[in-house]
């Protein structure tokens, strides 16, 4: 029995958590999100290299959040998701026990959100090399080539909203895309509507995205949709020096400003 199972079992037994959100064996050698509500389920939790999914979105999911206190098995991206959710008041100190598994495989039990911040202070977040490569490739293209690339991707989008559902920060009860007075974004999954949806999503994540790439992972038609918020996160890091999901009291980049902010295009 690994440390994660022991801790989960203890938290459930003492009643410190009603449910432990973690990973379990999935279909055919994959892993899936798993929920331990009792000793038996706690024994089935796993943690290994395959556990890259960001589970933070389960924290506010309607079927789970009433069970708070929760415990959650966390990798770095889950940690950042939780911190960002705390920044936006979606979770409070004491709502959640975070079981962070560090690079050495040690389980660090964070009961207070500040303890997560301490864990994150050790980490310099970096985007995946393959994402960086694709972003660089796109940056090197002409605008026309980029347009062709993205339009061909947008044509494939079926507006299933897996990207939104998988995102740790898309917690709105009513998403902007669901607003129909006015109907900002068409319901139909046509190309321009899809484009508007993905631009809106990326904009709404700007300054907030924790760069987990979960939206791209979730896409059933393999659109690299995570590149949009990640590209913005990188740019925001470069321009404003802010990184989301590292500290609770972080500046909200798009809802704050400095009078001497730079730009080079406003005439």
């Amino acid at each position, binding site marked *: 029995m690994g440390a994660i199972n022991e801790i989960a079992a203890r938290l459930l037994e003492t009643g410190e958590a009603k449910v432990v959100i973690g990973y379990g064996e999935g279909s055919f050698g994959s892993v899936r999100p798993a929920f331990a509500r009792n000793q038996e389920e706690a024994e089935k939790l796993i943690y290994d290299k395959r556990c890259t999914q960001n589970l933070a979105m389960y924290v506010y999911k309607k079927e789970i959040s009433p069970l708070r206190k929760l415990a959650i098995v966390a990798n770095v991206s889950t940690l950042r998701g939780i911190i960002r959710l705390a920044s936006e008041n979606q979770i409070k100190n004491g709502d959640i026990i975070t079981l962070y598994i560090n690079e050495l495989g040690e389980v660090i039990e964070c009961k207070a959100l500040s303890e997560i911040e301490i864990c994150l202070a050790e980490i310099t977040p970096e985007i995946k090399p393959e994402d960086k490569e694709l972003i660089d490739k*796109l*940056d090197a*293209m002409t*605008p*026309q*080539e*980029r*347009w*062709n*690339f*993205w*339009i061909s991707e*947008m044509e494939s989008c079926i507006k299933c909203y897996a990207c939104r559902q998988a995102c740790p920060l898309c917690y709105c009860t009513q998403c*902007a895309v669901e607003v129909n007075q006015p109907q*900002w*974004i*068409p319901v*139909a999954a*046509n*190309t*321009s509507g899809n*484009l*508007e949806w993905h*631009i*809106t999503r*990326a*904009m709404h994540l*700007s*300054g907030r995205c924790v760069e987990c790439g979960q939206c791209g992972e979730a896409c059933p038609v393999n659109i690299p949709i995570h*590149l*949009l918020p990640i*590209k*913005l996160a990188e*740019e*925001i890091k470069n*321009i*404003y020096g802010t990184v989301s999901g590292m500290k609770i009291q972080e500046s909200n*980049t*798009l*809802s704050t*400003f*400095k*009078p001497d*902010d730079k*730009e080079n*295009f*406003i*005439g």
Partner: protein
Amino acid sequence: MENDFEPKIVAFVCNWCTYAGADLTGTSRIKYSPNVKIIRFPCTGRIDFMLLLKAFSNGADGVIVSGCHPNDCHYTSGNFHARRRWVVFRTLLDFMGIDINRITFTWVSAAEGAKWAEVVNTTASKIKELGPYEAYRKITNEIWES
């Protein structure tokens, strides 16, 4: 053909600086291209980026966004927030290959009637040169043509 093209350009402007500046252009009888039509907002901070998308998906060939110069905002900081919003939005549009040359961001104060005329004329002639925004029209019209 080039000369026949009359672009559709929407200007999103704030009430206190650019709208007033455009009023001054009128009072000063400075002529400019009729291709640009103004929609009035209280502040650049009010201008939702989604409106720019709606403009393009409804056939605009170009867009102007204009408000008070930094430090001159009637509401003290709406334009500062807008500035960050446009920095990010423009980065995103460029990354997606949307033609950012079709969006003019500018500050025009209530005193800059002549500047408004110049902004309009420069934008109009630039968009005329770029031609109709066919690429965007193609994706918005697909649903109407089939």
